[in-house]
């Protein structure tokens, strides 16, 4: 890449005015467009979105199901499971469990599938500076 131009390029408006004294990040708009259109970045975007988006819809639906059942399905929620423990309590504790599991699952996915791709794209951009 024509690195001279990149270094000389003016900082964009988005970089705040009170920028501490540090080497200006070479910001050349086409670089970002090029990076964004690269197949590697497409993979990275897909690795994040195809995992995070459906999972977000799923856990919000699962939570709303719990809210709605608590409101409108008394018969089901009040049923005894064992001793004084009813379905409502088990369902509530299940929300805790699924929250912990989803956090763990996402982090595992991110470490295995997202981080390496992000690092690769970043490294190739930095190498081109």
């Amino acid at each position, binding site marked *: 890449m024509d690195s001279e131009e990149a270094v000389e390029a003016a900082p964009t408006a988005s970089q705040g005015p009170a920028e501490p004294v540090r080497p200006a990040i070479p910001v050349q708009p086409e670089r970002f467009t090029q990076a964004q259109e690269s197949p590697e970045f497409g993979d990275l975007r897909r690795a994040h979105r195809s995992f995070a988006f459906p999972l977000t819809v799923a856990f919000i639906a699962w939570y709303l199901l719990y809210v709605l059942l608590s409101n409108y399905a008394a018969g089901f929620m009040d049923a005894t499971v064992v001793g004084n423990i009813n379905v409502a309590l088990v369902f509530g504790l299940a929300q805790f469990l699924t*929250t912990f599991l989803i956090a763990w699952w996402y982090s595992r996915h991110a470490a295995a599938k997202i981080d390496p791709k992000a690092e690769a794209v970043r490294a190739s951009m930095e190498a081109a500076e």
Partner: protein
Amino acid sequence: MSTRTTALHATAHQLAATGASEHRTLIISLFSVFVAATLGITVWAGRQTKDATDFYAGGRSFTGFQNGLAISGDYMSAASFLGIAGAISLYGYDGFLYSIGFLVAWLVALLLVAEPLRNSGRFTMADVLAHRLRQRPVRTAAGTSTIVVSIFYLLAQMVGAGALVALLLGATGEGSRRWIIGLVGLVMVLYVTIGGMKGTTWVQIVKAVLLIAGTLLITILVLNKFDWNLSTLLGRAAESSGKGKAFLEPGLQYGKDGTSKLNFVSLGLALVLGTAGLPHILIRFYTVPTARAARKSVNWAIGIIGAFYLMTIALGFGAAALVGPKAITASNESGNTAAPLLAQEVGGGAGSTGGAVLLAVISAVAFATILAVVAGLTLASSASFAHDLWANVIRKGKTNEKEEILTAKVAAVVIGAVSIVLGIYAHKLNAAALVALAFAVAASANLPTILYSLFWKRFTTRGALWSIYGGLVSSVTLVILSPVVSGNPKALFPGMSFDYFPLGNPGLVSIPLGFALGWLGSLLSQPAPDQRQKYAELEVRSLTGYGAH
């Protein structure tokens, strides 16, 4: 953080009846130790605060674990400690419903917000928006909603602090309540102006450790009394509540009629979507060096906050079983003192040394909790004022770092003064409405814009402005028109009635509206010519961490 703070002020009937005022000296000593120690830390942190990154973001030098603790300290307010335990002790299962929304909400932050925000922003939420949208209007909008959300939240904590003092120290006089609110305000301003983000973070870490340790101790003592059998504990709680099996089932509080059920859905939505839009939570992600550390800190926070809410089950049902609803409501009709009363009970009962010590410890922890939360809120709002409104809008970027930090410190003093005055004169305000409003505004005004900015190519400045102002105005207006403000004896203006909106929480209407306006405003405007490139820059930065601060 819960509606149970509602009447913290309403029944400033002393715990004196149950012996708290006798232990006033002990409570005050413990609390003074906490204040002295944290101020010491603050001065130490202040010495290491050199530039804007230190002041706003703690030098980005905290580890994921440290930040996870600090996030937990920022998030677990006195209301969730005292309020949820109290709500469970009086309403049984329905008190527990709250904590689930508060916890699940963290997944939104983890999956969609924390990492891209850390990668692409510097100090405030608006930094991310300013990457791709017209900087001055969006900073003005985001700065305004940040300050509105923080002030409502802050006010709720101040009102709560004043009432808590009355309850726990038996200081029922108007004068002493004012002194305490003033003191809380002064200490929080000192934390923020001297220690900046570094000092504030350490205060939150210390508080989180104390809160978890205190809660764990009481939980162990309670469970031990029931041979570690949850079913036995629940049975005794149901029996002692006088409500039988219904105490363990949903519906005691929210199941009255169709409107209260709908209100619960609205509240649930605001809780689960509000967290990832709370400014004082968002800026915490900037205190770690990388997006991966931001992810780690959310994971720690989910673990710590989840464990805490699980323990509130033991606290709440334990208080119902061991203290009983009669003694709890005699002390405070919304149950806010259930946890300290329980501490006294498991420590050996009223009049015993063990009981006195545990009561004092738990009360001091509750105060520490309030101080740490208000410090976080003051920092978030003054940072947004200095960085977004002052430096980039009013001074149009022609300022230096020194001036910006000074502005932030002045803003912290002003915000502190404003919240002291509001806290003193607005103590009749319903703390619940304020907190619910803060969550609803965060979910309606902040979250749509954050998500659209990060993930939607076609999003425009007009979409952002419509979404932020639309979400802000609609949620505030609906609360004003709700039964919280007028039309019934418990309302802010009981004598008037303009309660045209039936729900206490506006989320069910204002959150979809905020998302819809962001979408509509974008489609009804032309993207700026450089829109494609600007979004490319934000997307690449946010996903890869390239050029991250």
